[in-house]
């Protein structure tokens, strides 16, 4: 390999970028091992002087963290299923059929995603209270599912467009219905996109804060982001070490999921772009 100035500069730039990205994560991580006093030290310590594991255990007991976890998982899975179930047919229709105002339909769907959540949270609150769904992860799953449909439609549509329609046509001429052609030909071929978009929706729902904070009331009904935020203020003040420990527990499943499917994802994220 030839080494020249540009290559060295690129490598250095990437190292700096990596450090820039990793430092907050690293600092959060070690903060979870510090005592409350050490957190306030100036200059801050980059390696804990007094290393303690206790907060990694305490957070499971001083609050219903297990319930937070359960709620987050339920809400995220429901939202992913709902978003996919509704966006797949829409994406397929918009990719394969030419109908009047197709681009308007697509744009309108996209604008729903731009809607500030704060604008609809109150009506939704009233609505869910009437349905007695307040304070349940199911209601959060429904709402997350709905707000993520636009992402599903747009990403999946771009994947479906990439699959030549001849494949489905040929399959139909072979003697199958359009539904079978979709299930047996198109669906397996857009699997990378399906995996990528599922994970994006899962991650967005996992970390959602606004709806979760307003639509849940009881301690056991909250999700991880809301539950973790409860360590701020209150009788004990800001408990940064607990916040950080809980945060790490919260993001680990998502990180594992991204690592597990990163092959799909790398292809998935570039698939629609490079023609």
């Amino acid at each position, binding site marked *: 390999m030839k080494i020249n100035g540009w290559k060295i500069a690129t490598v250095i730039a990437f190292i700096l970028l990596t450090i820039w990205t990793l430092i907050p994560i690293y600092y959060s991580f070690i903060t979870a091992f510090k005592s409350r006093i050490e957190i306030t030290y100036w200059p801050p310590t980059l390696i804990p002087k007094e290393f303690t594991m206790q907060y990694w255990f305490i957070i499971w007991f001083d609050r219903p963290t297990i319930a937070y976890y359960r709620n987050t998982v339920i809400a995220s899975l429901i939202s992913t299923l709902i978003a996919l179930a509704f966006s797949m047919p829409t994406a397929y229709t918009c990719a394969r059929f030419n109908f009047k105002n197709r681009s308007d339909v697509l744009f309108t769907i996209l604008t729903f995603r731009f809607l500030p959540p704060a604008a609809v949270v109150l009506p939704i609150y009233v609505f869910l209270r009437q349905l007695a769904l307040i304070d349940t992860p199911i209601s959060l799953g429904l709402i997350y599912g709905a707000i993520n449909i636009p992402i599903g439609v747009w990403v999946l549509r771009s994947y479906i467009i990439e699959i*030549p329609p*001849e*494949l489905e*046509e*040929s*399959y*139909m*001429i*072979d*003697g*199958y*219905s*359009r539904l079978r052609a979709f299930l047996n*030909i198109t669906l*397996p*071929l857009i699997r990378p996109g399906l995996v990528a978009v599922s994970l994006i929706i899962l991650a967005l729902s996992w970390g959602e804060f606004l709806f979760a904070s307003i639509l849940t009331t009881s301690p056991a009904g909250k999700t991880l982001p809301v539950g973790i935020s409860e360590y701020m203020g209150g009788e004990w003040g800001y408990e940064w070490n607990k916040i950080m420990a809980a945060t790490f527990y919260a993001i680990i499943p998502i990180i594992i999921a991204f690592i597990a499917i990163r092959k799909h994802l790398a292809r998935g994220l570039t698939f629609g772009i490079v023609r």
Partner: protein
Amino acid sequence: MAKLRVEKVSKKFGPKKVLEDISFEVEEGSFTTLLGPPSAGKTTLLRIIAGVEHPDKGRIFLDDEDITDLPPKDRNVALVYQTFALYPHMKVYDNIASPLKARKLPPDEIRKKIEEISEFLNIHHLLDRYPRELSGGEKQRVAIARAMVKEARIYLFDEPLTNLDYKLREAARTELKRMSKALKATILYATPDPIDALALSDKVHILFEGKLLQSGAPREVHDLPNNLNVARVFSYPTINLIDADLEMKNGKVTLKTPFVSIDLPTYCTSTLAEGRYLLAIRPHDLHIVFEEDRSLTNVFKARLLLTYIIGSETIAHVEANGVRLTLHLPYIYRVGEVRDVKVFIDANRILLFDANTMERVYP
């Protein structure tokens, strides 16, 4: 196998008329070619027959059964796409098995049929591979196998040779001829290539800008195109077109071009009028004259600009008094530099077209 009848089919995409009032028949067991330049509407027509596109007007009949509104799966037709349309996530075996599985045949029978067909097309060593591991020619044979295994009522081919390089094309053409003979199948074959039409088909339909211009036996249509566009489409290399003035004096009919005057038979006085025409002459009806022969008429001087040899034949480009002409010589003719030659134009082979209507007026 079955007889196909297309009746007054029209199709528009937006404001663009893709097919206009197309009617024709494909005889049972015949090899019929749809010849037309790109975007003539060939693919759309095949897609309408296969059922993946619906005509705006007109009906499609297979053996007098109206199939216009039937979904593709109930038509039992086979279509080989120009892009082959092999399912990338299925092995060759499963690709070929697809139409058989659709019919819910028992696995033993499917296996037997696939073995037969892969033997016939010489692809049995590929059955375990994925389409992306195949070369162009192999893909094409797999696509044909998938169509053939089906025992369809009619086989539709959409430029199956276009995506192959010329050597494979030659081999595949032979293969197709062999296959059509063996199957005694009804075949409708779309192609922009006049050679395909001449080599393969029993009958040819010329499609041009969504209209059916002429139908008939390939040789007949080739030699006597009714219309200038037919002559253009059905000529390899491209036919030479020359502006010509027709003059009549003392019962003699003379066709004047910038470089040669040709006497036409006297009966033309009654069939033609004086005026401007388009003279068309195929490249292989122009010959280079090497020996002085006074008895030979219709010889003119031209400058030989360049030649290139294709196999054992030569394509020569000449210029005669400002008009560029292409010659197709059935021998190898090597020349180093630009030089003057004498060219003989075969008056028995000229075609005259009306300059306005584009219709053939002579012979």
